[in-house]
């Protein structure tokens, strides 16, 4: 039988170390909502989402109460809208009507975000993909809860540089359209390479076409728990360090597994995967950068950071894999800047720059995330940053992403406030040398040689 020390340990993780289940995300297939009639598409989408997800929030809340573990977000991911709207949408404006419908449905069921205003264009762009991409700035400006993502490359297909070039412009336009809110639209827009179909985390969540009609995916978190556990092994060997991270990751993931099974049972929807990610929040003590410091760095960004992060990411996976029956999504350590107080401190101290963050993305779970850059950064430069990240993902067979926010009217040294879990960020300098001749070449970068495994 459970003893008092085990009970105290679990409750301490929740009360003092910010253990939580970051999100229950319901993936919903919308392919059956497709039609040539736009009104019909909108109607079907609204009906399907509000029917399937009507009890999602209340179920999440009652599970949180019964088990005594906070479930911070309840979210929905949907089939990439470029597929669902392909037959009906003839202009970007048509896609915006779908965005508004999704936003209305998300408000109706009470979720925090809905992700999947997306296009998968890793090799080529269909007409409907391009229309959707061109509608993103307006869609982000006229909705509140929509997250958008565009997959521009993969290890199997190479990188679609036409899409990369276009996304540089779209990020800039989105920033301009939402400039009254400090270009907040860009915080909900991510450009991916090797995007997974079952990611429960925003902004890159969508419900892949290989998935069931509806599915429950859960994202666990708990950087604070890992940090506190590591405090007890200061100065110990790497073996002890790694064992401690693994054991802690196991415990955190077990909570996610329990919540996922329970949510799946109560909602009558199959369980998909657990995403074993360490996802920070701006709350003090809920930081991945703090773990890196606890491992032995003065600040995130110091020499040794990439190695420490590689170790952390790997041990989180190793500990978590056995704790869950199905693992998927991104699974690793997130390194968003604005959402992590330790990262913000590192930037302010001058320890962390975009180039170092880029190196860190080779070994973390995703990519350049929630980085505020000067509003006058050129679209070609943003495309260059996207191309670099996509190349890292393509060659290393991992998911990478870029979520940068060119904050209109602000420059290096100023701060931007996004609010809530999105946090706040100091604006970071970007390399000023030009890459437009590279970015303006047409076509795509071929898939790397090691992708030919057949």
């Amino acid at each position, binding site marked *: 039988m459970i003893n*008092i020390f085990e009970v105290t340990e679990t409750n301490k993780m929740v009360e003092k170390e910010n253990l939580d289940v970051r999100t229950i995300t319901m993936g919903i297939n919308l392919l059956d909502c497709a039609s040539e009639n736009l009104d019909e598409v909108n109607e079907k989408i609204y009906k399907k989402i509000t029917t399937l997800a009507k009890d999602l929030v209340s179920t999440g809340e009652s599970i949180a*109460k*019964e*088990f*005594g573990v906070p479930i911070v977000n309840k979210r929905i991911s949907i089939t990439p809208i470029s597929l669902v709207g392909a037959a009906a949408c003839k202009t970007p404006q048509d896609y915006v009507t779908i965005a508004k419908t999704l936003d209305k449905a998300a408000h109706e069921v009470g979720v925090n975000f809905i992700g999947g205003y997306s296009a998968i264009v890793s090799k080529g762009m269909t007409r409907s993909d391009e229309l959707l991409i061109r509608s993103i700035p307006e869609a982000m400006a006229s909705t509140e809860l929509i997250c958008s993502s565009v997959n521009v490359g993969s290890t199997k297909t190479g990188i679609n540089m036409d899409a990369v070039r276009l996304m540089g412009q779209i990020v800039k336009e989105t920033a301009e359209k939402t400039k009254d809110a400090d270009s907040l639209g860009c915080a909900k827009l991510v450009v991916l390479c090797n995007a997974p179909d079952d990611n429960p985390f925003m902004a890159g969540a969508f419900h892949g076409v290989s998935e069931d009609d509806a599915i429950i995916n859960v994202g666990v978190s708990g950087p604070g728990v890992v940090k506190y556990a590591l405090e007890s092994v200061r100065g110990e060997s790497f073996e002890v360090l790694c064992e401690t991270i693994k054991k802690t990751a196991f*415990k955190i993931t*077990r909570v996610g597994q329990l919540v996922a099974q329970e949510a799946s049972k109560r909602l009558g929807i199959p369980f998909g995967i657990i995403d074993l990610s360490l996802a920070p929040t701006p709350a003090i003590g809920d930081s991945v950068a703090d773990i890196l410091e606890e491992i032995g760095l003065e600040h995130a960004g110091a020499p040794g950071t990439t190695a420490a992060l590689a170790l952390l990411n790997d041990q989180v996976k190793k500990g978590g894999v056995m704790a869950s029956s199905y693992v998927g999504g991104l699974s690793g350590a997130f390194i968003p800047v604005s959402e992590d107080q330790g990262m913000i401190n590192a930037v302010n101290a001058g320890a962390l720059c975009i180039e170092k963050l880029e190196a860190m993305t080779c070994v973390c779970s995703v990519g350049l995330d929630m980085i505020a850059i000067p509003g006058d950064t050129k679209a070609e430069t943003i495309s260059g940053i996207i191309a670099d990240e996509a190349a890292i993902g393509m060659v290393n067979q991992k998911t990478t992403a870029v979520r940068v926010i060119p904050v209109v009217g602000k420059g290096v040294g100023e701060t931007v406030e996004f609010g809530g879990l999105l946090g706040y960020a100091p604006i970071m300098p970007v390399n000023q040398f030009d890459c437009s001749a590279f970015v303006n070449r047409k076509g795509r970068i071929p898939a790397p040689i090691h992708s030919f495994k057949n």
Partner: protein
Amino acid sequence: MKKCVITVVGKDTVGIIAKVCSYLADNRINILDISQTIVSGYFNMMMIVDMSQPAKPYDDVISDLDNLGDEIGVAIKCQREEIFDMMHRI
């Protein structure tokens, strides 16, 4: 059987166990196990209880115990046992 873990943490005072136990008795909640320690004046108790046939819905029991804790000046939490089992047992 639906097992739950009730934890009571706070400054020690007269009648904590009595008040919690009479609430449980009044609501048909059977106590299976109790362990308790006092660390530097702080009362720390864990009970494993059977909630198969409580007189009230589970949500109400959680809120009642929370309010009772406020009254006595301690923190009372009631959680399903599975969360501890999952985390500490393979």
